């Protein structure tokens, strides 16, 4: 109990450090900057922190920490705007929020969804900080107890959420997840460096596809295109129903769900190497399982927002443990944070074991600055949510060009290649068809997100386990079947069984009518063709690089097997069976005034023009043409909106010191920024 004796004075020292007007001022400044930066989906924390880095050199540590933490803390809060209002998953932390948040916005309940999300975020952040204050003292041995078999099991638990999100035809869900896993293996293998479905002639593919692009392509592009075709506002009937107070009441009514998901968030966040990728799915799965009436999930169930949002801010707190105690960043922004801490003051603070011994007051300051930043950020966000929710009542045709602008820019920032835009378009197409034929998009995304951890942990755990087994059988068993692993296996099995029973009630894509055989069959055959090519490709990897081929071979075979069964079912079942779900048969998409391809052509034209004249020039042309022709607005309106869009883009990119995609023109002529 000696540790606790030192903890209490350190905690009061920490509060002494935090509760100074100037520290709070820097915190608020950081929060405001974080919110401004957070507008960009998929960019937030990392871009903002890099921007602050030059100022960190020699800065008073507590002020620098307040500024940086203020900025990092609000990203999982502010990216909720994009998830709920536009269906754009801002980061891996807000993917599950899209599932129910966006349908709520479509029902005209954007303000309610937002304030429920913010209230949950705030609460999650506070629960996380309280938990951490005690936990951080004893965390080290617990973190070390999570070896590779344990991490593999948590990853599998995350994957098991596919069972819940598989949709009406479970096989389709499994195949979608398998496809996601396979897409995730594209590129250079981590272990042996073999290429999977890539070639050195296309360097872009060797790095694999980025999560930002896949998230945007799978969720955002299909929704934007669909809404644009229907030419309506996001909120049906352009009216806002429930207000922000209702959302807070919703949260209060589900406070225990919020508590449980917060704890899930902290605990999973504590484990290094997993980061945020599984937390929100596990929380979402838990929300579904603990809800009696599951029929509303996927259609705008507020519990589907409260769960993931409670966990994702708590996770940020949990992520501090590996970051501060082991110097191992849980996320990209935490990695920059570690680098920045070294620049502070006289450079005395170094993350690692000393954070508990010599710098416990600083550690506690960080924990509670994070909690405080959550409070400030949430209050600002709730205050803004009523107004920002009105965006959902605007005719979507006026929003769409700016959303294309935003997602293109966000995609480009992930790798700074023109190919990023092509990949966004390609994945977007996959997303559109998954949506159309009612293949579970969340399952695909879970597969993609967990592809790398599954492969890495499987290979590494296998290698170390066989090493232990060679020593002695007992030692091997002890390593593989530790108590934690056994508990996780039980949890996983229970969640899969419950999930399969419940999956049919949860329709992430809403009701989908079924139609003729032809289109769904063609889509299935295309997926099968890809899987076969990927399998052949993986099989060509020489056997001494077994680590690089085993996972694609196994996953690919399982997915292909599912597809073959689906194919047989499709041949035997009559037209109109649920297996032939097709959104183009009936419903919103089918009755939309604009066709799919003509709508998609607008997006394609922006990308094509970017290839020729660079992003900003292409964007000017795109915005003017779109607003004049598609939206049919007056010249005056067109020019004003275009100027606003370009101005906003340049202002943000300029402040964040980011470039735009260049085109052929820029190769030939040297143009000044932002045209270069």
């Amino acid at each position, binding site marked *: 109990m000696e540790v606790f004796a030192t903890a209490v004075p350190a905690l009061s020292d920490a509060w002494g450090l935090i509760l100074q007007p100037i520290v709070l001022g820097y915190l608020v400044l950081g929060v405001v900057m974080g919110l401004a930066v957070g507008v960009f989906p998929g960019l937030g924390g990392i871009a903002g922190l890099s921007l602050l880095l030059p100022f960190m050199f020699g800065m008073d540590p507590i002020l620098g920490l307040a500024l940086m933490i203020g900025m990092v803390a609000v990203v999982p809060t502010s990216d909720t705007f994009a998830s709920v209002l536009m269906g754009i998953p801002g980061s891996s932390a807000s993917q599950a929020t899209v599932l129910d948040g966006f349908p709520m916005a479509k029902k005209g309940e954007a303000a309610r969804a937002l304030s429920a999300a913010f209230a949950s975020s705030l609460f999650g952040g506070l629960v996380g900080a309280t938990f951490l204050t005690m936990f951080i003292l004893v965390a080290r041995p617990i973190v070390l107890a999570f070896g590779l078999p344990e991490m593999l099991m948590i990853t599998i638990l995350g994957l098991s959420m596919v069972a819940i999100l598989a949709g009406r035809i479970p096989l389709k869900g499994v195949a979608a997840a398998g496809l996601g896993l396979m897409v995730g293996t594209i590129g250079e293998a981590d272990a042996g460096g073999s290429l999977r479905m890539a070639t050195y002639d296309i360097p*872009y593919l060797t790095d694999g596809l980025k999560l930002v692009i896949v998230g945007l392509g799978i969720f955002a592009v299909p929704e934007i295109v669909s809404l644009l075709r229907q030419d309506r506002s996001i909120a049906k009937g352009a009216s806002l129903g429930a207000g922000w107070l209702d959302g807070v009441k919703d949260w209060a009514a589900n406070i225990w769900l919020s508590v449980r998901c917060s704890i899930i968030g902290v605990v999973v966040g504590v484990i290094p190497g997993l980061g945020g990728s599984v937390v929100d799915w596990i929380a979402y799965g838990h929300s579904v399982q603990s809800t009696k009436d599951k029929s509303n999930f996927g259609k705008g169930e507020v519990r589907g927002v409260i769960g993931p949002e409670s966990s994702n801010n708590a996770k940020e707190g949990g992520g501090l443990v590996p970051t501060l105690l082991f110097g191992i960043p849980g996320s990209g922004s935490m990695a920059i944070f570690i680098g920045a801490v070294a620049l502070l003051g006289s450079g005395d603070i170094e993350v690692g074991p000393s954070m508990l011994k010599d710098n416990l007051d600083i550690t506690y300051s960080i924990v509670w600055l994070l909690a405080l930043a959550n409070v400030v950020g949430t209050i600002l966000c709730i205050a803004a949510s009523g107004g920002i929710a009105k965006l959902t009542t605007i005719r979507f045709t006026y929003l769409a060009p700016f959303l294309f602008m935003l997602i293109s820019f966000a995609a480009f920032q992930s790798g700074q290649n023109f190919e990023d835009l092509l990949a966004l378009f390609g994945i977007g197409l996959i997303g559109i068809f998954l949506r159309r034929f009612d293949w579970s998009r969340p399952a695909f995304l879970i597969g993609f997100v967990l592809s790398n951890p599954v492969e890495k942990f499987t290979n590494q755990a296998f290698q170390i386990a066989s090493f232990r087994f060679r020593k002695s059988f007992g030692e091997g068993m002890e390593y593989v079947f530790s108590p934690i692993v056994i508990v996780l296996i039980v949890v996983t099995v229970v969640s899969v069984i419950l999930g399969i029973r419940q999956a049919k009630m949860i329709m992430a894509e809403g009701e989908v009518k079924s139609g003729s055989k032809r289109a769904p069959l063609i889509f299935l055959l295309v997926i099968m063709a890809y899987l076969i090519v990927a399998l052949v490709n993986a099989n060509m990897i020489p056997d001494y690089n077994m680590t690089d081929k085993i996972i694609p071979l196994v996953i690919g075979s399982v997915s292909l097997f599912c597809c073959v069964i689906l194919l047989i079912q499709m041949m035997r079942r009559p037209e109109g069976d649920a297996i032939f779900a097709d959104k183009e048969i009936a419903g919103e998409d089918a009755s939309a005034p604009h066709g799919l391809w003509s709508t998609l052509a607008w997006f394609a034209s922006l990308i094509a023009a970017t290839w020729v004249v660079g992003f900003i020039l292409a964007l000017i042309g795109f915005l003017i043409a779109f607003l004049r022709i598609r939206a049919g607005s007056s010249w005056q309106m067109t020019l004003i909106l275009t100027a606003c869009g370009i101005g906003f883009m340049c202002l943000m990119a300029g402040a964040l010191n980011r470039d735009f995609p260049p085109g052929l023109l820029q190769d030939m002529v040297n143009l000044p920024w932002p045209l270069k």
Partner: protein
Amino acid sequence: MTISNFTRRAVVGLIAAAGIAAPAAAEVDFSGKTVEWVIPFSETGGSAKWANFFAPLLSEALPGQPTVVVKFMPGAGSTKGANWFQEQSHDDGTLLFGTSGSTQFPYLLSDPRVRYEYNDWIPVMASGTGGVAYLNVEDGAKFDGSANALKDTNFIYGSQGATRLDLVPLLAWQMLGMNVEPVFGIKGRGDGRLMFERGEANIDYQTSSGYLGGSAPLVESGQAVPMMTWGALDADGNIVRDPTFPDIPTFKEVCEATDGCETTGEAWDAWKAFFVAGFPVQKLAFLPGDTPQEVVDAYTAAFQAVTERGDFADISSKRVGKYAVFVGDGSKAALQTATNVDDNAKAYVLNWLKEAYGVELN
């Protein structure tokens, strides 16, 4: 190892060609400009830390005090950014490029993705680091300054990949006759240390700063035993004890004490060549090849001024580790040592990679 000492062993012709760095180039003025320092890695790596440390100092020291911003262009293990820099030419002297061992190794190993040529670029600053290998307590007890008693033990090591900087420790252990099985696919040395702490790996190595921050506390608390450093280079290019860790023997000493390990011959030459490219000259800053001499001089003078700051030793050791920093001619010599690996050494390593790990780079 001092800058002037290092300079003396530089290739004579290069010194002559380089001319003498003027203390201040009056005609170069960066007032109101923004210098972009492009790093071919992500925001989160060690090179980012390195550039972010030097950027504000460089900004103060350059004539006209331009803003120096660090830009990131990650991809294909840094070869994407390096290929891009190869295409750049001098504009107004506001482009600086940083490389690391991860850029040097693919170049040395003729990775098919490499479309850049180090000798086309003008180095203005170079810095290095050291590395320390350590063992778990059980096996550390068997270590007596030689690896003789370690040859029957099976070791597990968390590795980022055999063609990366990990080539240096893996080859060293192999030369000592130790049986080290690498577990590939970890993302950074921090993850390797965590694997060691969890007891899944029983041997590990860290660069100097990583060792001081994370592993030295393990040694202090009796959870790890230091084995050897890679050493440092003296003025004549000999491997000597790392000044940061004077009490830990070098690999060279351990090799000499171990039966069957030779400090001459092709294996040793190959190891030393890659050690030099990966550690004493790990990170370099370049200007495009056609940069006029007065701009080069301005950068040289600026980096010189940075390293001559009264507090430089203090602030740099805390933030980027106790790195030796070479400027101007020193950096040219450093580049030469780092990128000239003789063909036999290269062939030896390529063959070893293929035999031991099945890695073929073509």
